[in-house]
């Protein structure tokens, strides 16, 4: 049975999973979930993910939520085809991939998602304006993280070494949205980070997924 992904292409977290599926040349069915109509808060959805968030993956009897757990599962299940996203054949290299994946989750994501939340989600909710103080505070945090990346990417082509892995992939959707804001300079002004980003955007899997990332941030 084909894997099902619940969610919409414009969701960054859903896109993370779609990127992984394309890198692994794996068939899937996308089942839309109408977030604007709050279908992710209905009991039928909550029975799949009690936290009421997309994406959710169904693979036969397995139901999985949390996009990074989903990408890790897909990468492991299909480790023998498509791009080697985990370096599973060497335990130390695999650990380095995990390390930089955790960096994305713990250092990069909180800062960048806070900015995207203010500049995309808040305006869509219609009631408030973006909070400039939150944007400012998180841009500062993001700059520090990107300084570490600039240094790291001076030594290796990708974050976990010389090939593209989940550690890089997990960054893509939020960065794509971030580059549409007026703060793209944080990436553009760091040559190694910029080169890395351009490379990530040239991948065939990215070119299949990016057209779905249609939300426009406010220019703030």
């Amino acid at each position: 049975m084909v894997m099902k992904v619940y969610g919409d292409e414009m969701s960054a977290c859903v896109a993370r999973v779609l990127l992984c599926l394309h890198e692994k040349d794996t068939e899937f069915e996308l089942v839309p979930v109408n977030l604007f109509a709050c279908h992710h808060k209905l009991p039928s959805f909550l029975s799949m993910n009690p936290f009421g968030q997309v994406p959710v993956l169904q693979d036969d009897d397995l139901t999985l939520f949390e996009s990074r757990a989903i990408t890790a599962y897909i990468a492991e299940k299909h480790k023998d085809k498509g791009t080697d996203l985990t370096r599973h054949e060497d335990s130390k290299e695999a650990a380095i991939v995990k390390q930089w994946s955790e960096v994305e989750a713990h250092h990069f994501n909180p800062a960048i998602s806070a900015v995207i939340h203010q500049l995309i989600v808040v305006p869509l909710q219609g009631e408030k304006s973006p909070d400039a103080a939150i944007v400012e505070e998180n841009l500062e945090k993001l700059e520090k993280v990107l300084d570490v990346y600039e240094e790291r990417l001076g030594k290796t082509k990708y974050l976990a070494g010389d090939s593209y892995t989940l550690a890089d992939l997990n960054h893509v959707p939020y960065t794509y949205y971030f580059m549409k804001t007026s703060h793209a300079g944080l990436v553009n002004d760091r040559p190694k980070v910029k080169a890395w980003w351009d490379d990530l955007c040239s991948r065939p899997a990215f070119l299949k997924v990016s057209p779905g990332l249609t939300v426009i941030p406010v220019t703030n």
Partner: protein
Amino acid sequence: MELHLRMFHTGFLVYSSVFKPRPDRWSDQVGPRTGTFLVRSAGFKNIAKTKSFLSNLNPFGQVPVLEDGDLKLFESKAITRYLAEQYKDQGTNLLPDDPKKRSIISMWMEVDTNQFLPVASTLIKELIIKPYQGLATDFTSVQEGKEKLSEILNIYETRLGESPYLAGESFTLADLHHLPPIQYLLNTEEEELKNLIYSRPNVAAWVEKMKSRPAWLKAVAMEEHILDLMNRRRLPKQLDSSCHESTVVAQKTAMVVIANN
């Protein structure tokens, strides 16, 4: 030190957040060689921010860091996974091989990262770290934190009604990562926080089972031993909790400093 709290029966050098005063008076290795691992101090204020630490160990200037031969690894969830893999044939099997079972463990580790830990860390920061640092607790933030924690624990209560541990019938990395922050929440003076846990029978049973595990008891004893060594050598008054991957370790040491000054 966070690594002690989470890992057992490992055989490498582990950098921990134990205070390291003047190098001419101390050797680098404080703490017992317990079983097969060694604890190395990386100190508090500024040690994890030195050029040497940043360029050789962790560019984010945080502990824990694990060294195994030429591998240097930071980020505790990467470290625990690596050790669970390397030692899967001994001790508790924290990470089974089956991809579907493993994915459930990953999922609950992500829930810890994205849902549980942000709320727990804020509460620990407001209720323990800030008072220690002489800063005012933001009680609005505490109240919001308790409400969010309550919602999250409702989900855990349902989950732990389906199986004794988060990912199924046995204790795994998914449960292990929750234990240190839960311990610190319980260490606060806040009855309401304790009640959030103990008023939920499945969550309470899960916490009590984890706390009674021999490995946890060993880790706590080792940490207390190390803190005692630190005590007798006079601790610094300054504590930089940004060194720590989570605030939980800073808090425990802070309590010792307060008790001795």
